[in-house]
């Protein structure tokens, strides 16, 4: 199945894109999609412990499964305000 991966701030810069469409396994979790990305972009690996994730613009745990067509987001530590 395919998901749209959204990336922000430094992660966006590492990937060179704010959105990436990626083919992932049917039973993929956010953690699995992250590992796939980190393999593709090794500079992302140091963010493994500090990122948050969202599915369809709601915060989600890394263990959450995703569905075909979902929008998945990986968020580096935030700094609003």
């Amino acid at each position, binding site marked *: 199945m395919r998901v749209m991966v959204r990336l922000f701030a430094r992660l966006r810069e590492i990937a060179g894109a704010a959105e990436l469409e990626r083919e992932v396994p049917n039973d993929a979790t956010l953690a699995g999609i992250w590992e796939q990305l980190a393999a593709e972009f090794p500079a992302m690996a140091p963010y493994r412990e500090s990122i948050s994730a969202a599915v369809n*613009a709601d915060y989600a745990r890394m263990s959450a499964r995703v569905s075909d067509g979902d929008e998945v987001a990986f968020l580096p530590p935030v700094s609003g305000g």
Partner: protein
Amino acid sequence: MRVPPFAIVSGPLSLDALHAAVATLVDTPGAIVHFLGVVRGKNLGRVVRFLEYEAYEPLAVKAFARIEAEARELWTDARLGIHHRVGRVAVGEASIAIVAASPHRADAYAASRYAIERVKQIAPIWKHEHFEGGEVWIEGASARPEDEDARAEARRRACA
């Protein structure tokens, strides 16, 4: 101009519009507290040229609404409005405006302070600092909306 109480805004913030949007939500607001976070000209010894903010807009707006819901668990009659800028923000300009309205001033102050602490903890917004000699992404807290320790710290800072 009608504005929504929770928004990501590109371009200068209108405190007046946000104030109007929030004040009408409270039956008899005896106290209104505004917070403006303003871009400082120095940070960690660096001379700041400007900031550039990026947000995951739909999630940020939901995070602001979540923060208000949390605040209203603590201060039942308080209402909040939160606007945060994205894009380039000059030194001296506000990057965030928060309006808290409540019948009583203690609740308005507490809800306001709680809100800015929670925005810094969980809103999906990032600050790209452009300083004399370079640029850097500021990375603060890992956004963990359900982390009870973080909420407790925000309550503590709000003096609740």
